[in-house]
C-alpha cells in the first residue's frame, strides 16, 4: 500500500528526498567556483600572512613578523587615520544630504521623479571613470589658484569627499525615500493633531521611525568609505608622496610596489579584513539597540 507521504511525514521531507539526488547539478557548480574564487584564496591568504614569499612556492613560515612590520609601517598607520577620518566625514556628509533630499523629494512637488532619476545617476558610473571626471574639474578650478589636487593631501581629501558624496548621495536617498514612504500616515497625522511643530515631528516621529533605514545607510557608507579603492587610485593615486593613500590602496601598493613585502601586504590585508568586520558588527549592534528602545 502506498503511504500518503504528505500527511505522515514532516513538512518538506518529500521535496527534500526527491531533491537530494540532484545535489551535484544544483549546488556543485556554484560551490566549486566559490571554493576557487573565495574559500581557497581566503585560507591561503591567512596562511601566507604568516609567511615570507614572493611566489607561493617559496613561502617560508615567519610567525608574526609580517604583522609587526605592518604595525611599524608609518605610511600604513597614516593611511589608517586618513581612511578613518575619511569614512567618518563622508558618512556625515552623505547621510545628511541624502536624508534632506529624500525629505524634499517626498513632498508634493512637480517633477520629483525626474529629480530622483538625476540624483541617482552618478551611482552607476564606475570608480575609475568618476575619478578622472572629477580630476578634470578640480584641477581646472585649482589651476586658477596655482595649485593642483595632487600637490596637497587635504585638497585630495576634500576632493575625494565631494566625489564620493556625488556618487553615493543618490543611492542613500533612494533607501531613505523607501523608508519615508513606509511611515504610516496616521502617525504623522496624530502628531500634527497633538500640536507637534514640524521640527518636533521630524525629530520625534520621522527620525525614530526611520531608524532601520538609517542603520542601513550608516553601515553602508562607513564600509564603503573604508573599502574605497578605485576612486582613490584614479583621483590622486595617493599623491603627494603617499599622503592621500587610503588603506585599500596602501595594501595594493605593498603587494605590487615593493618586492619582498608581499607577506606584509597580506598581513595588512588580514588586519584590514578584521577591521571591516569589526566595524560592521559594532555598527549593527549599536543601531539595533537603538531600534529596540523606541
Amino acid at each position, binding site marked *: 500500500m502506498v503511504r500518503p507521504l504528505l500527511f505522515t511525514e514532516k513538512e518538506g521531507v518529500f521535496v527534500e528526498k526527491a531533491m537530494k539526488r540532484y545535489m551535484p547539478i544544483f549546488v556543485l557548480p556554484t560551490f566549486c567556483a*566559490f571554493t576557487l574564487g573565495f*574559500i581557497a584564496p581566503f585560507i591561503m591568504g591567512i596562511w601566507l600572512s604568516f609567511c615570507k614569499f614572493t611566489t607561493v612556492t617559496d613561502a617560508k613560515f615567519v610567525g608574526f613578523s609580517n604583522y609587526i612590520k605592518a604595525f611599524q609601517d608609518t605610511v600604513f598607520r597614516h593611511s589608517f587615520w586618513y581612511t578613518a577620518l575619511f569614512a567618518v566625514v563622508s558618512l556625515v556628509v552623505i547621510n545628511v544630504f541624502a536624508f534632506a533630499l529624500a525629505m524634499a523629494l517626498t513632498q508634493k512637488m512637480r517633477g520629483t521623479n525626474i529629480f530622483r532619476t538625476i540624483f541617482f545617476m552618478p551611482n552607476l558610473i564606475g570608480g575609475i571613470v568618476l575619478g578622472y571626471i572629477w580630476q578634470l574639474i578640480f584641477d581646472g578650478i585649482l589651476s586658477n589658484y596655482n595649485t593642483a589636487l595632487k600637490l596637497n593631501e587635504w585638497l585630495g581629501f576634500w576632493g575625494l569627499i565631494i566625489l564620493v558624496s556625488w556618487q553615493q548621495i543618490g543611492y542613500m536617498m533612494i533607501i531613505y525615500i523607501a523608508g519615508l514612504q513606509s511611515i504610516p500616515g496616521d502617525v504623522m497625522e496624530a502628531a500634527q493633531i497633538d500640536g507637534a511643530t514640524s521640527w518636533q515631528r521630524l525629530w520625534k516621529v520621522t527620525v525614530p521611525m526611520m531608524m532601520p533605514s538609517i542603520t542601513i545607510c550608516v553601515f553602508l557608507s562607513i564600509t564603503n568609505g573604508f573599502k574605497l579603492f578605485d576612486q582613490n587610485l584614479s583621483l590622486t593615486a595617493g599623491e603627494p608622496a603617499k599622503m592621500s593613500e587610503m588603506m585599500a590602496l596602501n595594501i595594493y601598493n605593498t603587494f605590487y610596489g615593493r618586492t619582498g613585502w608581499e607577506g606584509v601586504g597580506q598581513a595588512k590585508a588580514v588586519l584590514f579584513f578584521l577591521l571591516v568586520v569589526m566595524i560592521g558588527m559594532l555598527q549593527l549592534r549599536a543601531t539595533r539597540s537603538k531600534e529596540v528602545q523606541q
Partner: protein
Amino acid sequence: MKWKNKLSWAGTGIFTILGVVYILPILVVLINSFKKKVFINKEPFTLPAEKTFVGLENYRAAIDKYELLSAVGWTVFITIGSVLVILICTSMCAWYITRVNTRFTKLVYLLCVFSMVVPFQMVMFTLSLIADRTRLNTPWGIIIIYLGFGAGLAVFMFCGFVKSIPLEIEEAAMIDGCTPLRTFFSVVLPIMKPTYISVGILETMWIWNDFLLPYLVLDLNKYKTISIIIQYMKGSYGRVDMGAIMAALILAIIPVIIFYLSCQKHIIKGVAAGAVKG
C-alpha cells in the same frame, strides 16, 4: 492653498537648478571630448570655439590608438556572460540549500553570508595567483571567478526570496511527477522573476564598473576592459592624450546611461532591495 502651490513651484525651480548642477561634471567631460587636446587642461570650462573644436577626432584617436572598441566588446562579453552564469547557478544553489537541510547546506549558506563582508584586498593576491595557475586569466575563465566571488550576495538574496515561497507549490509539482530540475525551471524560476531582476542589476553594475579584479586576473597583453584601458591611458608615462581620455570616459558612460534610462524603475527597486538585505 494658493500659497502652498507657489511653494511647490519654487521647490521645482530650485531642484531644476540643483539637478543641472548635479549633472554638470558629466557635461563638462562631454564638452571637452570635442576640444583639441591641448586646450582641455588649459581651459576646461569653456565651450569649444572655432579654434578649439575638433569634431570627433578624439573619439577616433581613442578607438584607433587604444583599441577601445575591443575593450568595450570584452567588457560587454564579461558582464553579460558572468551575470547570466551567476543568475542560473546561484539561484539553483540557493533553492537547493534552502529546501534541503543538511550540515553541508547550512555551511554553504553561512560561508556565502560571510563572504559578503570580506573586502577584496583580503583575497586579491592569492586569487590572482590561483587564476594564473588554473589558466582562468581569459574572459571565459574570469566568468568562473566572478561566479565564485559574486556568489555570496546572489545566494543570500535568492535564499531570502525562496524562504517566502510556499513549499506546497513545489510539492504539488513533484507529486505530479516533475523532477527537481523541471520543478525548478518551470515552477520556481518564474516565481522568482523579481529577484532575478534585482540580482541581475546589482551584479551588472558591479561587473561592468569593476576595475581591480579584471586588472589582476586577466592576461593584460590580450584582454582589457574599459576601466583598465582608461587607467592605462592616464597611467602610461610620457604624453597623456587628454582628448582620447575624454572620449573614452564618454564612451564608458553612455552605455550605463542608456541602460539606466531604459530600465530605471527596476534599477531603483533592485538597489533598494539589495541594500535592505545587504
